[in-house]
């Protein structure tokens, strides 16, 4: 009864036909420029066509010279790649952003309250709002998190909330990322590139700055230091050079002016956390970690992990350091729990959700499962525990074989999958390189948006976020590990 309890009715496919058409972010159905995009479009159209075509190549060269790269798992050939960048900006008008910002803060606060609750009283479960087994049975539930208190009650310091814009033009939440969300460094680097590529346009439109994100993050981390520490030492924990987001770890530590540490740099002594420096051990008060729970502490989690530091959990339990994000926050971005997030917002905040979520069906419910399996080619199926687009099956574009395999997986372990009706992700004009005569061609590609919300002494939101674009024609998967690229996102001043 999960879907029903979460207040979700299965879709009537015939009735929805019109809404399934994706909108274009820059042009309306009649092909007219949307008002907020008019100046950008006029500017681009006035450009020498070959200069427009060159924009992408110039951006590419700048990224390469700056060494802005990411690593791809399982790709031994080219260890470092440039995250493909599309120079056509995505525009968000001030009033739209104002609404999103409130909705994002609301959502982050509710998810945070959920984490605080499930690892202590579990009141939301007792009150029957979320089924106990869905929480306890999640791959992301971490019993060792019980009993660790975070200063100010903040467990989710950084949230990356993936938004998609539907056929009705409204933004919906597609999924939450509240473990170690990445991508923010590209937002800042993209902007640095764009201010060099199209400086006059950025100035003319009065685009809101994204530069202050590292300062915001550092402020939040410092506000979360254990009580009584006036000048806390913050460090960023990375799994190292071979992680796909290593560039970002370097970038953020550099921008914040904090040490970038690996597990081997750390040691726990007397329930306190230290880093090994040239002149001896130095205490760490707040650790912004960019490695998964499983690798944090071989004493409590995976004993074969060399990435973390033995004894960290005990340090946290003793209240001698703060970990951001806290252990176990993944329970709040579990894709099964996702179906209950609107209920969560009502439960903890007594407010109506400001941003709707994409309809989500839990396949553990036999009736829901039967219904979804009947129309499997109309759904996107996602494993509840995975992230980064891994293991996702997109019904309409999957082969019969892939569908049969998905069906098999679902029937074998129904609780490990959710289904969402294929969502008509909006499209955005995107530069498709040069066509035969050396001129630029613009094509429509699907986009999403990952804004970043920070919780500390007070919430802070980066203006805009990372617009990801699926560069392959028709593709709905925007993840960088799956052939996606990015665009600069321009939130306009009032």
């Amino acid at each position, binding site marked *: 009864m999960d879907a029903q309890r979460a207040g979700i009715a299965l879709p009537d496919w015939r009735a929805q036909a019109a809404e399934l058409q994706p909108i274009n972010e820059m042009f309306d159905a009649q092909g007219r420029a949307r008002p907020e995009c008019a100046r950008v479009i006029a500017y681009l159209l006035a450009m020498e066509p070959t200069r427009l075509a060159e924009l992408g190549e110039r951006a590419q060269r700048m990224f*390469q*010279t*700056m*060494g802005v790269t990411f690593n791809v798992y399982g790709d031994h050939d080219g260890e470092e790649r440039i995250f493909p960048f599309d120079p056509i900006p995505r525009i968000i008008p001030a009033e739209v952003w104002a609404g999103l910002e409130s909705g994002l803060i609301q959502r982050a606060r509710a998810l945070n309250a959920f984490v605080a609750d499930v690892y202590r009283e579990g009141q939301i479960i007792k009150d029957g709002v979320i089924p106990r087994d869905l929480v306890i049975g999640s791959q992301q539930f971490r019993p060792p998190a019980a009993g660790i208190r975070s200063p100010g009650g903040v467990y989710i310091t950084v949230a990356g909330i993936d938004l998609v814009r539907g056929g009705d033009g409204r933004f919906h939440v597609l999924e939450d990322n509240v473990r170690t969300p990445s991508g923010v460094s590209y937002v800042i680097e993209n902007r640095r590139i764009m201010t060099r590529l199209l400086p006059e346009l950025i100035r003319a439109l009065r685009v809101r700055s994204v530069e202050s994100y590292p300062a915001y993050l550092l402020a939040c981390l410092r506000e979360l230091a254990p009580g009584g520490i006036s000048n806390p030492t913050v460090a960023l924990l990375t799994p190292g*050079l071979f992680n796909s987001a*290593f560039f970002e770890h*370097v970038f953020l*530590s*550099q921008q914040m*002016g904090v*040490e*970038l*540490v*690996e597990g*081997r*740099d750390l040691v726990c002594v007397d329930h306190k956390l230290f*880093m*090994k*420096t*040239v*002149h*001896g051990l130095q205490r760490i008060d707040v650790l912004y970690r960019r490695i998964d729970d499983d690798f944090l502490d071989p004493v409590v989690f995976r004993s074969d992990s060399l990435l973390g530091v033995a004894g960290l959990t005990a340090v946290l339990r003793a209240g001698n350091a703060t970990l951001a994000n806290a252990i176990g926050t993944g329970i709040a971005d579990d894709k099964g729990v996702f179906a209950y997030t609107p209920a969560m917002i009502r439960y903890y905040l007594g407010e109506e959700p400001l941003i709707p979520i994409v309809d989500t069906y839990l396949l553990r419910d036999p009736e829901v499962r039967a219904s979804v399996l009947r129309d499997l080619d109309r759904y996107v199926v996602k494993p509840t525990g995975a992230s980064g687009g891994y293991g996702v099956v997109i019904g309409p574009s999957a082969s019969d074989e892939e569908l049969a395999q998905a069906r098999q997986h679902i029937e074998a372990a129904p609780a490990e999958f959710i289904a969402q009706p294929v969502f008509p992700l909006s499209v955005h004009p995107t530069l498709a390189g040069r066509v035969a005569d050396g001129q630029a061609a613009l094509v429509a590609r699907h986009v999403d948006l990952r804004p970043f919300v920070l919780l500390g002494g007070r919430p802070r939101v980066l203006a805009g976020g990372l617009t990801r674009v699926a560069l392959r024609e028709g593709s709905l998967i925007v993840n960088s590990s799956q052939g996606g690229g990015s665009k600069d996102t321009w939130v306009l001043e009032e």
Partner: protein
Amino acid sequence: MLRRIAGSLFWAARYLERAQWRGRLVDVNYRLLLEVPPREAEPWEPLVRITAEQELYATLHSQVSEASVIDFFVFEKENRSSIKNCIEALRTNLSPLRHLISSELWLAVNRLYLESSRWSAQTLAANGVSAFFADLQRHFYTIEGIIVNTMPRDLAYDLIELGTMLERPDNVARLLDVKYHYLLPRLEDIGGPADLRQWAAVLRSASAFEAFRKLYGHAITVNRVVEILVFDPTFPRSMRFCIERLAQVLASIAAREEEPAAETLPYADLLGVLRAGSAEQTIAGGLHEFLIGIEAMYARLAEQVFDHYMALE
């Protein structure tokens, strides 16, 4: 500063220094052979000995030829000290610590790395060997200039100096030793044109030729070459200069700690030997033996410095 980061800076400096020596060695040898028809059967052989990489070389090449030696020194993937690998190691070491170095330095290193990743034997053929090395040397001088001019004189800078001042004397020692040991001319040739040409090449390999002229005049003798490369306190590529700098750098690092430990590091004996020695005495006592001894002392010092400031366990 993290010990791991300190190690990265230290090794970045060593690789930068090493790559430069490799470049100069090959370049000088190449030019030497352009001017004068070689008398020896294989004039490239000593280069392989200088770097003590004969064994690896032998597994990769059945014979010593100009093309294969240049390939081995510049491009060879298997050779950890090939210039290409040194540049990659330089970049890999600096990459995670961009916050400690200037963005100019990172850009210059990254640019060199990107260029080197496109190198192939054709690059040399297309541009010409001399132009290739001249260009490379410019890259290195740019990087060094940026280090000197953009980095504050803090611990990071000291660690870079430390790496440079430990790597450099090692290269000087090998260079001298090979000339003295393997290129030993017949008695009647000592002081002859071939001998002088070789000593001049040694000086050029250490970028010491003009400095030598200035300090010691025109007559190149073994004694004077040893004097400038080993005992001269003013020439930046002499062993004496390096150990004096090293002592200053270690003192500067120690000054930042509460319990200075640099006193326990064994640089005092090296300092003593290089301050007190002279070329004449050294050659009389056997230059080869002297250099072997110096290299051993340096190896011990480098190990202790690393353990003391950089090792994680």
